[in-house]
């Protein structure tokens, strides 16, 4: 509402009306330009995110279980978490080039630590009491993981996956805007370059929508896991 009001009263070229943005969005979708851009961007984001999850969840749980693993990996992950994303991207490109692998690597670098730390926090949520009880009743390492740890740590794991997904999308757009102009980043840069304000707004909205959708999806998993793990199943 505020947006529409501001656009109408200012009559500015740089602030498009909601209507113009919507039309531009339909137009972009119609030519297939949008879909292509989304696919190119998400290809990197998806691969990177899947990789970060596949490494991050087991690594975080292992760091929770074995102090030596925690001691070894923790400093690297802290650096990874603390590094400002745009500053690190040029370095990655120097090392890995401009192709898909470089973009995937950036996504992994920026999603991994979040996923690891939350999985580790999830493991700690299980509590030593349950681990001790399980070994007292003769649980093997495998049973311990399957029947206790994965159930108890699920809320932390899913929270990490959700935040990791948001960081993955953010990393994907950042690298496209900063250095490798492809996908959604390219769409945004093109719109900006040609003063296509409606196109710019439309592209940004698509990215925001995607990020929100992902976050929402994983939040569902997280809440379900959380309620189940705390013993709050509806009954």
């Amino acid at each position: 509402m505020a947006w529409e009001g501001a656009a109408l009263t200012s009559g500015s070229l740089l602030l498009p009306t909601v209507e113009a943005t919507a039309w531009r969005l339909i137009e972009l979708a119609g030519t297939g330009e949008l879909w292509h851009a989304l696919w190119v961007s998400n290809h990197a984001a998806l691969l990177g995110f899947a990789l970060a999850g596949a490494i991050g969840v087991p690594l975080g749980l292992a760091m929770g279980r074995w102090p030596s693993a925690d001691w070894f990996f923790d400093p690297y992950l802290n650096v990874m978490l603390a590094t400002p994303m745009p500053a690190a991207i040029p370095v990655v490109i120097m090392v890995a080039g401009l192709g898909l692998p470089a973009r995937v690597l950036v996504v992994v670098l920026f999603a991994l630590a979040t996923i690891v730390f939350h999985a580790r926090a999830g493991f700690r949520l299980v509590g030593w009491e349950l681990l001790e009880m399980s070994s007292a009743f003769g649980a093997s390492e495998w049973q311990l993981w399957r029947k206790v740890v994965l159930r108890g740590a699920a809320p932390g794991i899913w929270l990490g996956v959700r935040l990791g997904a948001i960081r993955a999308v953010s990393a994907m757009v950042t690298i496209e805007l900063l250095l490798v102009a492809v996908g959604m980043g390219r769409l945004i840069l093109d719109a900006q370059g040609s003063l296509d304000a409606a196109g710019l707004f439309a592209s940004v909205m698509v990215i925001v929508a995607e990020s929100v959708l992902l976050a929402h999806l994983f939040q569902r998993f997280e809440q379900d896991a959380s309620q189940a793990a705390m013993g709050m199943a509806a009954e």
Partner: protein
Amino acid sequence: MITIESARVRFASTEGGAPMVALADVSLTIARGEFLCILGPSGCGKTTLLKAMMGLVPLDSGQIRIGSHAVTGPGADRAMVFQNYALLPWADVTANIAFGLELRGASREECARQAAHWIKAVGLGGFEHHLPRQLSGGMQQRVGLARALAVEPEILLMDEPFGAVDAQTRRLLQEDLLDLMQRSGKTVVFVTHSMEEAVLLGDRVALMSPRPGRVREVIEVGLTRPRTASVEREPRFTELKEYLWERLRAMRDEAADA
């Protein structure tokens, strides 16, 4: 029979100082079918001793034997009831009670049958599908007790099991435990910091003192069995309770002088 021979346990200190001696040279023999209470002030190593019997805490030296076998880890002949209940928060009463059986590879039917039996035995009928957080502390510990009994151990190790419940509930739990155990012939080792509880439940009371943890004295209770809570009116009960309190207070004074 449980034989504990010169058991020593040290814990690494967290600040890198000298290691803390949790158990210093503890020797103790517990007869088959005996109900032994371990009594002592906090920090005397009574829980450590119990966990060592369970095989959860390794000894630095000495030995614990069950019959002729040395304890090297948890085993099917022993089960433990925990101070903080340690129930799986996501599992209902039935699943929690069957947990030990499930780990041992019992079939689904066997688990359900055993759980149903023990739910009745500990007085949890009607709560089969409740989750731990929907139960009071006393009921949660009934689940903990049923879970331990369901694996049919020869030896039941109980770590201050009624320490966290209110006085009335504790009294009921004690009476029910007396009732259950007197018929079972199981060996029970019961850690407590309550003198009344030790005298009410035990055949003998092992008195431990802290820093370093050691067994000071083993006292024969000598009250008749089957016992009910009415033994609390017998002179022997009061006499023993007073004696234990004197001994505990003497330990405090020693510690204060040191």
